[in-house]
């Protein structure tokens, strides 16, 4: 089991066992502060973590100073519980609560976090592969027509017919108002 850095693709560089170990270590690193009795989840560091607790996770001097507002009581951030985003936990930018037993994203959250219990990779399924057929030199448009369609290739004419947003795409719009 080794990292084969000369291989062409990331998938070739690690074997399945290595990948699993890497993901598992990553999840462990994020989920549990080994020596931190206060369940601080900052990565190991001898510097001030900025999360309200002091020192590192290696043990001795860990004295959390919970400043205010955190209803979960792990960190000192002053945030409402429902948007308690401990970005130090996973770096995924999601706003899930950060109690260890709740920081388990299902893989439908779309947050990109790899900690989900249902993460396909960790259950032994292969990574997703992209399929893209090779283009061929055919059905070339006349130049004026190409300008109109924004492509030289008739096969690549895919008109876009926008529909009104219903406001449920988290795009920040007001829904249906353009």
């Amino acid at each position, binding site marked *: 089991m080794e990292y084969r850095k000369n291989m062409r693709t990331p998938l070739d560089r690690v074997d399945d066992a290595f990948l699993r170990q890497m993901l598992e270590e990553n999840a462990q690193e994020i989920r549990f502060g080994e020596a931190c009795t206060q369940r601080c989840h900052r990565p190991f560091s001898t510097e001030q973590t900025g999360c309200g607790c002091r020192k590192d996770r290696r043990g001795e001097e860990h004295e959390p100073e919970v400043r205010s507002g955190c209803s979960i009581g792990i960190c000192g951030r002053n945030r409402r519980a429902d948007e308690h985003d401990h970005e130090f936990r996973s770096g995924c930018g999601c706003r899930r609560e950060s109690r260890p037993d709740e920081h388990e994203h299902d893989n439908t959250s779309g947050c990109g976090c790899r900690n989900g219990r249902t993460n396909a990779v960790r259950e032994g399924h292969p990574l997703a592969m992209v399929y893209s057929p*090779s*283009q061929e*030199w055919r059905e*070339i448009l006349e*130049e*004026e027509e*190409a*300008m109109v369609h924004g*492509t*030289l*290739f008739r096969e690549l004419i895919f008109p876009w017919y926008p529909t009104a947003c219903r406001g449920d795409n988290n795009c920040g719009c007001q829904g249906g108002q353009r």
Partner: protein
Amino acid sequence: MNEQRKLQRMIETYSFVLYETALYLDTHPHCRAALEYYGKYNARLKEAMEKYESRFGPITIYGNRNCEEWQWVKEPWPWEFNA
């Protein structure tokens, strides 16, 4: 559409066609049909630019033909073409 605008439009069109072809050739560097097409439109572009610059002045900074004057700065800027 006056003659100058017609030539501009030709140059825009040939440039676009060439750019599309170049993108294709990036992934198909040995496609003879695409290379032939590229050669044909490259010649057309050069011809159109030559024609334009000889009549209306430089269309890029490389097209200055006057030894007495820097014509480029006297031409309309790109956003002024349709003014």
